[in-house]
């Protein structure tokens, strides 16, 4: 149901039934290793290209999520996902493997919440019983797609971010199918594309912060809520620079957050001593942190209501080389444990 200018409220409270979270070797050394279901110790994941490795991540994460609910692929009506590689081929090829009717999404690093919002909408309005959604990224495949060959010795500035190797997928089911408390999607706010004229592809966080701030403010306005409604506002991959900037922008709009109430997935996933510069990024970043760590914390009772704001920088290597600025987007999904 549309509320305000761009928010959906889901009266039937579609539930996140199960999740599958898979990571690479670098994530295994990170802070949230215990929240992953499976790791690969090799970036190649037994494949002969990094693109196939990305596909493997998706296939594994989907399978794990289905297995946890003992669902067959035929029980799932739709598969909504996307990634960063050329024409989202890893996602499409993974959809070829699992044979589930498929919507390919592209919202760069915001794909995870784009998918979750759409899935909740589908399930809420009886478009589907079960939907699998999520997002993935692979560090080396992304490096070579957007930047340089992985072995090239270019120096990354401290504003750069590290693309997560990982996939996080969830099975979304009808709210009435579970009576016990579960993480449920209650509302979502769709972002608009914002462009503040930044051009530095090594400073994504700084470019994406306005989109995050705009969507968060839009969410509060549409639903008539204020920050105290949520235990945690968590952004996708703003990292150090973007997070500070977004907090400041929200302050200007009259929304104040204490530090512990406004976190960023890109700052949670890796340890202090891992050389990730500003923080983590990639569609896999918000997907693995939400479907792994955050839902586990909700089950433990740490958080009751969270607002997940996945941010995406909608650039391509081509637009950057042609001197275009970086347009950005953010989608917010509110998840409540009830």
């Amino acid at each position, binding site marked *: 149901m549309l509320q305000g200018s761009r928010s959906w409220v889901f009266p039937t409270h579609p539930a996140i039934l199960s999740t599958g979270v898979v990571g690479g070797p670098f994530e295994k050394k990170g802070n949230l290793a215990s929240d992953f279901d499976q790791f690969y110790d090799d970036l190649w994941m037994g494949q002969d290209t990094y693109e196939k490795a990305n596909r493997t991540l998706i296939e594994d994460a989907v399978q794990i999520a289905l297995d946890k609910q003992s669902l067959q692929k035929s029980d799932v009506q739709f598969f909504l996902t996307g990634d960063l590689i050329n024409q989202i081929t890893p996602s499409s090829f993974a959809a070829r493997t699992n044979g589930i009717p498929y919507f390919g999404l592209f919202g760069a690093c915001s794909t995870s919440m784009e998918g979750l919002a759409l899935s909740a909408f589908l399930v809420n309005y009886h478009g589907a019983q079960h939907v699998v959604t999520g997002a993935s990224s692979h560090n080396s495949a992304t490096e070579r797609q957007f930047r340089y*060959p992985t*072995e090239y*010795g270019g120096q990354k500035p*401290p504003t750069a971010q590290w693309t997560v190797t990982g996939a996080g997928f969830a099975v979304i089911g009808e709210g009435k199918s579970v009576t016990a408390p579960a993480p449920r999607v209650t509302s979502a706010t769709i972002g608009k594309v914002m462009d503040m*004229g*930044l051009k530095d592809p090594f400073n994504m966080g*700084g470019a994406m912060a306005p989109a995050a701030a705009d969507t968060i403010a839009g969410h509060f306005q549409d639903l008539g809520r204020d920050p105290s409604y949520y235990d945690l506002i968590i952004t996708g991959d703003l990292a*150090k620079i973007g997070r500070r900037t977004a907090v400041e922008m929200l302050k200007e709009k009259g929304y104040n957050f204490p530090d512990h109430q406004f976190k960023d997935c890109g700052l949670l996933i890796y340890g202090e001593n891992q050389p990730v510069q500003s923080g983590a990024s990639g569609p896999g970043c918000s997907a693995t942190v939400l479907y792994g760590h955050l839902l586990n914390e909700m089950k433990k009772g740490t958080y009751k209501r969270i607002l997940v704001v996945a941010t995406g920088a909608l650039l391509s290597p081509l*637009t950057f080389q042609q001197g*275009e600025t970086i347009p950005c987007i953010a989608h917010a999904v509110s998840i409540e444990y009830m």
Partner: protein
Amino acid sequence: MGKSPKTPEQKKYEQLEKQYETKRPLLKNVLKAFFVGGFFCLIGQVITYIFIYFFNFTEQTAGNPTVATMVFISMLLTGFGVYDHIGQFAGAGSAVPVTGFGNSVISAAIEHKTEGYVLGVGGNIFKLAGSVIVFGVFSAFIVALIKTILIQLGVI
């Protein structure tokens, strides 16, 4: 080319963002570039003397085998996955010496192996180094042309 003037809103945001942006550690980067870059050149000098001392090369002719040796070292460092870490540490210190040129060629070759030897390796090997060759050749052409004309006119 997307050169539309910035709106006041964009300008204001840019200022805000600047405050929170992590600055590049200029002094540290410069020092690291100096020492690592100097070290690469020192290695080059050692190799030059090895060629002079043990092989039949003069100072004039030792340059070519030295460059080839440096590129060979660069291949090993790139292949074993070390050069990208050196590059992150040293910045221009490892990009400017000829080993950096080698690294840009070799890393592209290794990376695009998955697309096959002809289209992948062959087609992409100069993906990064190509611009250096193009601008080197073209500027050298202009410089040499001007100089030749001046010499033929008897100016110099």
